[in-house]
């Protein structure tokens, strides 16, 4: 096991990002290894989604070096699966669950494409992996938030990526569905040995699965295990104002920070 070379999936060195003259990130450095489960935390507007867009090649750094799977980020990289922050779909949307997953497979290709048994098979297996075969033909607008989230994960996974970027997949989910989605992602992370970066606003549902957290605030980041980062000392330094981390009922609460 230890002889295996763990090539970093993501490497950031002294990265700055400025959007419209405003500095979003400053001198950020981090490394993410294959198979790691990373949870990205931080207040609204801290640049979590921007960092994901940087990795996708949708945002250019204003300084520093970014390497994704050994190369500069580029759009259309099949080795990255991405599910953006999810909005609730209109109930009337004329699209079936299997169509959403199909977009991930060949939505970017020119032409109409021909229906084939192979394509159906690939989509069926992708639906199977997220336990979504029972609603494959249902209109997506009528599915629950958890069901829609499963589809987005299946869509992101269909190209067999080595890196999975999930922006707030737990938003708008009740506790039961939150648990289901967390265990689904954890299972994907282990069985496929792919790196996962998951943006969340609460670490608690993810404490048992997160290898490391990336905590972002005021343009800076702190990385490490949840126990190392989510402490009063580290977060006070990161926020630049007093922050208290409280442990209660097997849960962690960050007090004093506007999360």
């Amino acid at each position, binding site marked *: 096991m230890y002889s295996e070379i763990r090539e970093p999936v993501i490497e950031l060195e002294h990265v700055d990002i400025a959007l419209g003259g405003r500095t979003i990130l400053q001198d950020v450095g981090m490394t993410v290894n294959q198979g790691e489960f990373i949870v990205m935390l931080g207040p609204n507007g801290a640049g979590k989604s921007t960092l994901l867009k940087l990795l996708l090649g949708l945002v250019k750094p204003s300084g520093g070096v970014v390497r994704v799977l050994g190369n500069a980020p580029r*759009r259309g*990289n099949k080795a990255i699966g991405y599910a953006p922050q999810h909005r609730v779909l209109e109930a009337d949307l004329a699209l079936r669950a299997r169509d959403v997953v199909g977009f991930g497979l060949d*939505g*970017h290709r020119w*032409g109409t494409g021909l229906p084939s048994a192979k394509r159906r098979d690939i989509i069926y297996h992708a639906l199977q992996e997220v336990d979504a075969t*029972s609603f494959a033909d249902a*209109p997506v607008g009528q599915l629950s938030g958890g069901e829609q989230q499963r589809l987005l994960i299946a869509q992101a996974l269909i190209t067999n990526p080595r890196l999975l970027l999930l922006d707030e997949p737990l938003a708008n989910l009740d506790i039961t569905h939150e648990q289901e989605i967390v265990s689904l992602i954890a299972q994907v992370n282990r069985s496929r040995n792919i790196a996962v970066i998951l943006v969340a606003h609460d670490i608690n549902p993810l404490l048992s699965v997160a290898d490391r957290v990336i905590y972002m605030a005021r343009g800076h980041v702190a990385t490490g295990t949840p126990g190392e980062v989510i402490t009063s000392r580290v977060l006070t330094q990161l926020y630049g104002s007093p922050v208290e981390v409280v442990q209660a009922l097997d849960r962690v609460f960050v007090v004093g920070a506007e999360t």
Partner: protein
Amino acid sequence: MFDIFQYSFIQNAFLAGSLVAVVAAIVGYFLVVRGLTFAGHALSHIGFAGAAGAVLLGVDPIVGLLLFTIGASIGIGLLGKEIRERDIAIGVIMTFTLGLGLLFLSLYSGYAERAYSILFGTILGISQADVKVTALFGVLTIGVLLTLFRPLLFSSFDPEVAQARGVPVRLLGIVFLILVAFTVSMSVQVVGVLLIFTLLVGPAATANRIVSSPLWALVIAIALGLSYTWLSIFLAATGTWPVSFYIAALSFGVYFPVRLLSPLWRKQRGTAQVKDASKRNPALSTDMTVAGEQGTEAEALGRIQGLTRQEELPC
């Protein structure tokens, strides 16, 4: 009864009408799923000014139509999807060009029929040359749409992921609006600028209410568009009322009941799906539901207990 087909103007009407119906149904489908129906409506009205200007200058109205609609479609495309006031901006431009159209018409001292035909279409007056122009633009539009089909569909439903996957979302949006401009310009001779919604949006909106698969929605939209057009030409040729009225009436007459009744079968299908799922694996799904419910309840209870416990803590 079918002897009307021996007249060449009826043949021309059927040919041009069918082409327009097919193209409008496909373009209309994308307009509906992209939430751009108002832009489609506005483009036709902006085209009115172009057509009126062309009439004033003594050139073929289609030239003015194309110039104005293509120009406007690029402008609308550049406004982007994020701009909240987009529809307001489009509306302001649209009403301004309508005013321009009125000015051009009042400066034009010729026959009122020219204006009338731009506004309401003159499908029974289509010449062989018109059919050829329609065929050219029809084939061009369908060809481009087939080439762009998958990325256009992907970016219509999920622009963010499409962009991340390398789809040129913004460029596609502008190219698509130019295709809308072609379609509007073609459709004007059949239904006129005021009634373009009937062929552009009517069939696609109805189809979207009936099925959820994009491919079937397109097939149904095309079938509806063709049947409205054929039936209307037939009714108009054997009666005295205008074709455009029949197309508008059919488009409305089918959409309205489908819109009213579609929640019924949509809901039914939803429940059928759930039943189907539990049938396939009854033990699993019942257990999961029960477990899920208990889970939520336990969680809720835990939270309440947690609160009470916290309150009881001596501080």
